[in-house]
């Protein structure tokens, strides 16, 4: 087995160091080494988005990133979206709009939605559907998710 590497990175604003073997994915590192189990494994090959995290400002499937690749990088996970006990507007709107049922895809949707709305708070329905097409949900039929993202965008625009 290849030797473990020492990796220094920043996760949800805090400096973190961990050891991982080169073949361990960022998703494995987050879940198994760092106890950040909010990011979910739905397919482990980049087709469902349940493991979405923000890597250096961009949404990525953490199952398709090697742990060793995040040396010196900035990583944001679902655990970092709320500010202490204050939910982020996208979290509030998902709850108020009943945009989750089983909740397994929710972390990925929240992370991707936040990334989208920070880039484009007044994203139209098509833009939302286009940018979140890499996140699969089997429970909701997406209707309430799209509406929740729209509502969150409006709420974020207000607070700015």
């Amino acid at each position, binding site marked *: 087995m290849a030797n473990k590497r020492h990796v220094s990175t920043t996760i949800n604003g805090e400096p973190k160091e961990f050891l991982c073997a080169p073949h361990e994915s960022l998703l494995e590192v987050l879940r198994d080494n760092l106890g950040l189990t909010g990011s979910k494994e739905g397919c482990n090959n980049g087709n469902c988005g349940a493991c979405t995290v923000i890597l250096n400002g961009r949404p990525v499937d953490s199952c398709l990133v090697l742990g060793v690749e995040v040396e010196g990088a900035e990583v944001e996970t679902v655990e970092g979206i709320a500010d202490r006990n204050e939910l982020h507007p996208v979290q509030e709107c998902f709850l108020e709009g009943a945009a989750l049922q089983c909740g397994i895809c929710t972390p990925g949707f929240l992370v991707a939605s936040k990334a989208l709305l920070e880039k484009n708070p007044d994203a139209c329905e098509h833009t939302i559907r286009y940018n979140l097409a890499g996140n699969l949900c089997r429970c909701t039929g997406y*209707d309430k998710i799209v509406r929740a993202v729209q509502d969150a965008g409006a709420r974020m625009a207000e607070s700015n």
Partner: protein
Amino acid sequence: MIKNNGNGEYRVLGTRPVRHDGADKVTGKAVYTADVQLPGMLRGFILRSPIAHGRIKSIDTSAAKTTPGVHAVITSADMPDVGDKVADLGEGAVNLKYLSGNVLAQDKVLYKGHAVAAVAAVDIHVAEEAAKKIVVEYEELPSVTWVLDAMQDDAPLLHEDLHTDSMGAKSENPSNICTHMHFEKGDIEDGFAQCDIVVEREFKTASVHQGYIEPHASVGDWNEDGRLRIWTATQGSFTARQQTAEVLQIPISDVVVTPCEIGGGFGGKIAVYLEPIVGMLSKLSGRPVKISMTRADVFEATGPTPGSYMKVKLGATSEGKLVAGEAWLAYDAGGYPGGMIGPGCMCVFSCYDIEHAVVDGYDVCVNKPNTQAYRAPGATQVAFATEQLVDEIAKQIGMCPLSIRQLNAAKEGTVRVDGPKYPPVGLVECLDALEDSDHWKSTLEGPLRGRGIAAGFWFGCGLKSCATVTVNHDGTVNLLEGSTDIGGSRTSLAMQLAEVLGITSDDVNPMVGDTDSVGYTDVTGGSRVTFATGLAAYTAGRDLQTQMISRAAEEVWDCSPDEVTLESDGRFTHNDESKTFKELAAQLFKHGEPLVARAAVSPENPTNGFGVHVADVEVDPETGKVTVLRYTTIQDAGKAVHPSYVEGQLQGGTVQGIGWALNEEYFYHDNDTVANASFLDYRMPTMLDLPMIDTIIVEAANPDHPYGVRGVGETPIVPPPAALANAIYNATGTRMEQLPMSPPVLWKQLQTESTEA
């Protein structure tokens, strides 16, 4: 004296509170099975069959066992002999040798992905690489996946000892046909003789998977006290406990199942796959063991719902009155006998009042994973057939597709083909709601566009549920119940308790208990939780109030209990004195023993959920691609407890039905192994493939529930393939006789018909 709230005006029901488990689920704190971490926990990997059908000649696990980091390796040889015994699992019965054989293949593998051996090691990579060192020698056997082929006398036999059961009678020769069912009503010859018009078509549908995003996962810890603790992704902790105990041949009392948060099930997380394996690996290794399936495992070894062949004949008078119907249905069961053909037979004509009918149904083993329930199991296939024939009759006699359904709709007293009469049901109300809807009144313009409608039915079952209510110092209450919460049921149950007690949803802390802490509760399935476990919560609330009346009489008002009145808003009054639930509960807590109430229910009548869908589509004739332009789902919910989550069930079920209709299917290589075991190639709908899904909730009260609640979860998946097929016909003039109606299929059909024309 209790004044029941019969006036249909509610304080809590019909509102939209934030779900109790919401914050955990938007912050990543909610614990799903794969998130469970125990000290010293090992990770497991399952070696699966690479072939569709074969005899296992030998398995050599020595190389795996000696791999550094490996703690245990098992095959079916390590599992107890369960014998040839049928176990009643509440939602259905199963022969244990089939259940056990599906968990770990015994003498034969019956489908690609069939579990053959399992390894527990220090991490998942070590377990996987070790599993690949297990040498399995197979004698490959001819395989069969198409249901009609499997019914032939010369078809490869999956089970040499399986004989066709025809209501207790067994066939002389072994067969892949597990079950033959036959239903009759009226006089079929006479019926068709009365018809002015008769239409008949053959239909086939592909196997589809439930497609939950969370792969199956289980954690097992065989404790030193001899008890097996299981954390697992299951729709039913009690049925998981029973199945695990039966497969491992240990007392049920030695198994405790903790249902974790579950990432979708839709019927596919009722049978056990991993639980007995992690149990046995834990027993042999002396360590807790976790196994999560890969996505490929999920597609190749779990689910799916049956592929089908259906021949359906429907006759009517020139006025559009349906008179006679005949159906011949063959559903594939997968590797072991399945359970979907019964409901298929019962649902094929369930939406209509048809005097004369005959239905034959066959459940047939093929080399696919053992089929499992999938949202209204067996009903979507037959609706695809019947609802198209109803449209075809309407077209031929120049009648509106809505009118012909209104004319023939099942209603109170309608006798279904299997015998029973319907109590009050809401199909007519749904059809009338469609007639009044903006969608139906709107005009659809443009070439190659069409609108289609279809109706759907699912029974919705009752079964067993328990609830315990404990009262806190401040008069808030804790609701302990046993229904795993897949889509917000904690809150819909808490709301029903809050409604009875006259408190708010937030005054109730609902909690799903493990099998040691809560009374037996059947699966979260069959659209039963909000109805049946809701009834338990309601009944426990009534039990609590009855206790409080007698205690208030004795400890507060010093009067006889019948001098205390419980008002419909939950207040207790004596003469002109009045106390709210919280006031009285807090006062009684000070004076005497704590307040605890409980309920155990087993409502037995189906809740009979009907729905009607309307879809607008546009077809691209150059590619055969169908775009859904607009969609409205209408359903009778009896009483919508939390309307947002009722809408969510309608929208979610509808979109699963749209996926089934347009793209989802299993592809097979020539050797009958699955070719598309990934989300990429299985093609469930993405957000970009859909419009908003409008919903209209009809409320025709269910007489068997104090608030009139009906189950809503399953019916919404039933109409979409038929509604879209009818829309495609109205857009292009071509009738779709197979699912999915994928672009290559529709394009080819349009080509053929245009060259023929």
